[in-house]
């Protein structure tokens, strides 16, 4: 029971943490948030701005990567829960046999 809880809490922490890897690329206006404004500065420092299509592709790639990472984590948790379910079912069956 404690194992379920620990694994579940530990893995669920990855969700929001992964979502902050996604940097704002051209969707937020400058000055809206601290990180956005900063990113804007760095991006336009002496270099020509990236064409919009490139930014969109980057963003899509990042989103796909994050989704893939989290899916992998969840497949792991789902497998764990599945195994646990099977073990408990086996225990219950054993118990019913023993009672008879």
């Amino acid at each position: 029971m404690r194992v379920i809880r620990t694994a579940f809490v530990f893995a669920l922490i990855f969700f929001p943490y992964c979502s902050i890897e996604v940097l704002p690329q051209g969707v937020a206006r400058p000055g809206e948030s601290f990180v956005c404004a900063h990113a804007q500065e760095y991006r336009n420092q002496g270099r020509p701005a990236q064409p919009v299509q490139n930014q969109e592709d980057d963003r899509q790639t990042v989103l796909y990567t994050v989704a893939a990472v989290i899916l992998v984590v969840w497949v792991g948790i789902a497998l764990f829960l599945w195994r646990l379910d099977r073990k408990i079912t086996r225990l219950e069956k054993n118990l019913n046999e023993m009672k008879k």
Partner: protein
Amino acid sequence: MTILTRGVIKSFYILMPLAIIMAFLWAPSAAVLGDFSRIIYFHVPLAWVSVLAFLVSGVLSVAYLMDKKKRYRWLDEKSYNSASIGLAFAILTVITGSLWAKLTWGSFWNWDPRETSVVLILLIYIAYFSLRSGLSGNEQRGVIGSSYLILAMIMLPFFVFLAPRIYDSLHPATIINADKRIYLDGRMRMTLLVSVLAFSSLYAYIFHLMNRMLSVKKATEDLHAGD
């Protein structure tokens, strides 16, 4: 255990990956916050499901105290299970919420009315676990724990629903408030709904597993009681 219940609980295996994919790939990014807003698909369902878990634990405690004939077994342990899942989800809500706060307002914690009330709820339920461990070995543990859970459940509406609505809060407008939707268009609403269902089924599944482990453990103890 009917097939319907089993189906609802096992739907977790489909719903959660669906929710993840929808949250990152299908839903559009918000107008102001950008892709940071995707955290909403995890933060809000976690919060709702933790309140649900606490309510379930309170209701089971009421049933335990009123059930003189012991028709349902070990309701006090089941309410303990639900409260522990609720606590885990509430802690995750606080973590995700403070990450969002850092991203959008620059600081992790602001002692906003909503944040303060969530901390209060956390403290109340952490105190419940201290009470239970202080009462270990006492056969009144179930009764006293249940009374405390009822007390906690009754304080819940004040902290979760009333306080953030009465005091002006930095927190984004609550979703249930009909005329204050900031940026929920159709796709986002759909994703949020799926995410809520996914987390609810996760809660139902883990609760169900914990209860089954409980009954196996109790049945084994009963069997070996004669040794």
